[in-house]
């Protein structure tokens, strides 16, 4: 007998004001409901349009557990399709990216499709005469994902008819993407460097929550960032000029007070960001020539305003996060209740000096790689949590820090940077989008 399927009340009971039930992390049925409802009713990041610069270029990914194909059609528009031949179900492409030419051709029976998904030709078509094929689902071609929005190069899609439109869903939170794009003197980003893919044996939401968890760095990362500071001080005594790697590691060891004052902002629908006033990215060394290029492009005042924004992590509910000052994004792809693929992507700021891309890639390698010591710290605590949650004596996870009962009515707010309000904000959104169609 199912406990949660078709039972919106039971799903709602998993989220209390200051606690969530462990079933949101460990239960198979809840996970399947997430795939069927949460990932259908919300706008999910698919990819960046610079990954498909030319007509016929495609990129394969997933939305929830659904194989997806992002493709640039001959008219320049980026389409998002379900990666499945309408005939027998074969995945149309299996490689991550490539160019289809003028059409996709299924490798099984050579049904072919235009790059907007519509059916182009079927071999030996006369075999379907008078069979009513024109009434079938198959004849419609590769099914498109219903709602697609390309926002300044970032392609999002929503699978179901339920749930808000793009602008209502993201609202003010798009300011983080705006800031990251504006950091390019040309106002454009290009995916660059290569994607780091790190397999985690834990629930996808643990990774999302961790990115606005400001009470863990000085604890979980003492082993990596703390050691980095110690080794550097010993090897370069009296030096003030940190090497790039130490400049990246050291701020992880900032004090509680630093993170309290850093601030968190939340928006409706589960979005929010850390680093309102400053962040661990605020004190990086200037890159020669970059500011001059920004001033030339935007003028002094605007250039300063763009670069003074140092947001730490922005969480786009449910599974997409952005680090504007570093030009990196992370996508947490759910595979099972206890299995998640963390993808970390990086961007080149078009027309900015190469040294910026170099720092971006260094950050990604040092912090997000399967070989990263910071990554090792985080993975260890996630996986211990995934195991510990099986303790029956206490099925509740606490998210109470700086809770105020009045917060429930507020759609947006700026608060103390150690608050867990953003985690509560995410779970309120989780409950809403899960139960909207159950």
């Amino acid at each position, binding site marked *: 007998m199912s406990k949660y399927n078709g039972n919106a009340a039971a799903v709602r009971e998993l989220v209390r004001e200051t606690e969530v039930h462990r079933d949101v992390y460990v239960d198979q049925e809840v996970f399947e409901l997430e795939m069927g409802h949460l990932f259908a009713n919300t706008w999910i990041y698919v990819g960046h349009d610079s990954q498909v610069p030319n007509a016929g270029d495609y990129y394969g990914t997933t939305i929830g557990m659904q194989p997806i194909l992002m493709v640039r059609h001959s008219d320049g528009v980026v389409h998002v399709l379900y990666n499945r031949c309408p005939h027998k179900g074969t995945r149309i492409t299996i490689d991550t990216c490539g160019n289809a030419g003028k059409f996709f051709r299924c490798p099984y029976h050579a049904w072919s499709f235009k790059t907007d998904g519509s059916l182009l030709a079927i071999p030996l078509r006369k075999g379907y005469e008078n069979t009513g094929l024109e009434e079938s689902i198959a004849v419609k071609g590769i099914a498109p994902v219903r709602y697609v929005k390309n926002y300044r190069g970032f392609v999002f899609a929503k699978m179901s008819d339920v749930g808000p439109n793009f602008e209502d869903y993201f609202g003010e939170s798009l300011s983080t993407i705006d800031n990251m794009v504006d950091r390019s003197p040309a106002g454009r980003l290009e995916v660059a460097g290569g994607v780091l893919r790190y*397999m985690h044996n834990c629930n996808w939401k643990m990774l999302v929550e961790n990115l606005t968890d400001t009470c863990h760095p000085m604890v979980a990362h003492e082993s990596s960032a703390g050691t980095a500071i110690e*080794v550097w001080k010993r090897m370069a005594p009296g030096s003030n000029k940190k090497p790039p790697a130490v400049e990246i590691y050291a701020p992880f060891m900032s004090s509680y007070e630093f993170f309290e004052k850093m601030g968190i902002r939340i928006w409706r629908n589960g979005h929010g960001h850390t680093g309102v006033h400053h962040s661990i990215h605020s004190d990086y060394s200037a890159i020669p020539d970059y500011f001059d290029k920004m001033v030339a492009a935007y003028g002094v005042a605007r250039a300063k305003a763009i670069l003074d924004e140092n947001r730490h992590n922005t969480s786009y509910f449910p599974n997409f996060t952005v680090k504007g000052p570093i030009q990196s994004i992370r996508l947490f792809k759910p595979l099972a209740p206890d299995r998640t693929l963390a993808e970390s992507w990086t961007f080149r700021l078009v027309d900015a000096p190469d040294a910026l891309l170099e720092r971006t890639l260094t950050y990604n390698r040092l912090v997000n*790689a399967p070989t990263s010591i910071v990554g090792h710290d985080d993975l260890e605590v996630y996986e211990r949590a995934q195991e510990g949650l099986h303790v029956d004596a206490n099925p509740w996870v606490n998210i109470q820090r700086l809770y105020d009962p009045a917060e429930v009515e507020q759609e947006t707010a700026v608060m103390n940077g150690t608050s867990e309000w953003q985690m509560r904000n995410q779970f309120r959104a989780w409950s809403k989008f899960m139960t909207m169609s159950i």
Partner: protein
Amino acid sequence: MNAPTDQDLIGFVVHEARLIDQHRFEEWLALFADDGHYWMPLEWGQTDPRLATSLMYEDKLLLQIRIERLKGNRTFSQKPKSRCHHVLQVPQIDKRDEAANEYVTWTPMHYVETRLDEQDLYAAWATHTLALVDGKIKIKLKRVDLVNCDAALRSIQLFM
């Protein structure tokens, strides 16, 4: 030492792997030249460690941080500790340039890393760029190319 023989170079590469397997990390790090690097590309056939992402591209400072972290009291991902095991083919000498003081070896290998009940097997090629420094063979660059460099990987906490 005069110019190293092929056997010296082969012996060096084999010994280097042994030091890792035996967790003799300080001795291992001492095998690197002061400007030496350990590089693990992310891309198949990658040529640039700077403007393309790597899994690792570490100088002696970063390697020293790793080694100290491995024995840290609050390094929870090493409680319990990982263990590792190399199986090397006989290193092949790809280049001997005594005038330029540069020697390159190429070593196909299998590498196992294990912790708790999990054991991961990797296949890779190690390319060592070596030089004589004060009469001793030192690593200028150790490049490790994983066969599945672009796969979704689990944690790799030690050194290949």
